[in-house]
């Protein structure tokens, strides 16, 4: 009895004792570093959000979404960017209509039908390269293919450029979502007499749908934020969206125009001051 209670006592002490001081210090130190670096990583995000809310909120009104931009320098006129919102929506929508079906079909070919053939390897290689092409190059390509051919900057050319940007994202994310579907599901379907086509469309796509949706949303977010592919293709317009074959405004190019105008004005003022100084 004596020994048992002694053992229990020392066991209790052992279980309740602190860790060695070195390990405690290390643990606190690492926690501090992790917190610090997390804060550092979040800093830019919160600065952007803060300045958007601080500067944007006072300007925000229903009018912003429903009117055209007022002419530069005018004061007191209704000001907004409704045309850019519609332009972006139209072009991203068109790009999605092109890239999502093509992308998903390509991914199905790669994941389900190619059986590791050489063609599949080549297609995957090309798609991966395409995902690495700078978006400005895609813009120049769309300019060469569509703008030069139709002799017109247009929403169509912009959509085409955005579709090229979206395509590899859709293909690669859909393929990885399809490859995650367990073989057991495919075997079960085949065991019930489903053809490979039926298995793919009824079972594999249904199982992979959440992953595919994530990929599509990523691609849409990317396309909606792209400026470079639109500068040479859709160009810009200060009027409402008219038709697919005329220049069209977009949110990203609107931001680009405003910021370059501001920089330009600053440079002109700076130049004027210099000239004035010189003349004095």
């Amino acid at each position, binding site marked *: 009895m004596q020994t048992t209670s002694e053992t229990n006592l020392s066991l209790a002490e052992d279980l309740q004792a602190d860790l060695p001081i070195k390990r405690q210090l290390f643990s606190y130190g690492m926690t501090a570093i992790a917190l610090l670096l997390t804060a550092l990583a979040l800093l830019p995000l919160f600065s952007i959000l803060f300045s958007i809310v601080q500067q944007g909120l006072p300007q925000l009104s229903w009018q912003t979404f429903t009117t055209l931009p007022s002419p530069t320098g005018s004061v007191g006129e209704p000001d907004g960017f409704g045309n850019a919102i519609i332009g972006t929506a139209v072009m991203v929508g068109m790009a999605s209509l092109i890239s999502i079906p093509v992308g998903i079909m390509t991914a199905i070919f790669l994941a389900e039908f190619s059986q590791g053939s050489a063609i599949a390897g080549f297609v995957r290689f090309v798609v991966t390269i395409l995902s690495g092409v700078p978006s400005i190059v895609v813009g120049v390509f769309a300019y060469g293919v569509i703008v030069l051919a139709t002799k017109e900057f247009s929403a169509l050319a912009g959509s085409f450029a955005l579709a090229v940007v979206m395509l590899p994202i859709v293909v690669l994310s859909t393929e990885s979502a399809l490859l995650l579907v*367990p073989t057991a*599901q495919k*075997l079960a379907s085949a065991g*019930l*007499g489903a*053809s490979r086509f*039926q298995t793919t469309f009824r*079972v594999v796509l249904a199982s992979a749908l959440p992953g595919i949706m994530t990929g599509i949303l990523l691609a849409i977010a990317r396309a909606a934020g792209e400026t470079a592919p639109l500068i040479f293709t859709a160009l810009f317009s200060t009027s409402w969206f008219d038709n697919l074959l005329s220049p069209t405004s977009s949110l990203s190019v609107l931001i680009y125009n405003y910021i370059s105008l501001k920089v330009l004005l600053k440079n002109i003022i700076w130049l004027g001051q210099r000239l004035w100084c010189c003349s004095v």
Partner: protein
Amino acid sequence: MSYSAPNDSGSLYPDAPAAMRVTNLSFSYGTRLVLEGVTMPITQKHVTAIIGPSGCGKSTFIKSLNRIGELETQVQVKGKVEFFGQDIYSPKVNINRLRRQIGMVFQKPNPFTMSIYDNVAYGVRVSGSLPKRALDEVVESALVGAALWDEVKDYLSKSALGLSGGQQQRLCIARALAIKPKVLLMDEPCSALDPIATRKIEELIHSLRSELTIAIVTHNMQQAARISDYTAFFSTDESQIGQMVEFGTTTQIFKEAIDTRTQDYVEGRFG
């Protein structure tokens, strides 16, 4: 187990008509030979158990009977597998139609990520469309047949993944029954289940026997003894190639096996 031994008469074997007849079957994955020289019948409306130690090719064998093995890897098949006289490896055979006649239940329950109803209706839907009412009837009778109806009749639109492992496996059996196959292949259907779920599946197999031809792979010898009419014992030879050692009625195999390897295995001396 309460049910009676179905296999008292040894004379069943040569006379009973075969649903499938395997003749000198060899099977390779790529260039690796895994199974050689199997000759045995799968007797109509009886249960045939395939037993043997791990790696003896029993799963490979059963997967060759509805040509599902070839989906996973490149395979080579020599010999003959006849299904009511038709060579299933003939290039003229449509394997999707073949697999509708020869259903399969896998080792792990693998219901689709769909509702219970859609799982059972899947096989019917891929082979053509039925009016809603007829489909409802097929689904109900398949679930009744798999002894699952009472447990799920109020949850037919719920996801099949919410069922327990044993229920999922019975759902997979119902799914296979819904397209009215002539033969049902089962690849260790109870290996992922607890004893109570296993017992339910065994009772189910017992009740299906009068309507259906069943071939079942099992590593559980007691299970084979309980549920089967015929037993095939598979083993590997010196070069690790699987082969069928002995085939007979279950009573013969378990009580008066001819081959010493069979005797050793069923008496638990190896494997």
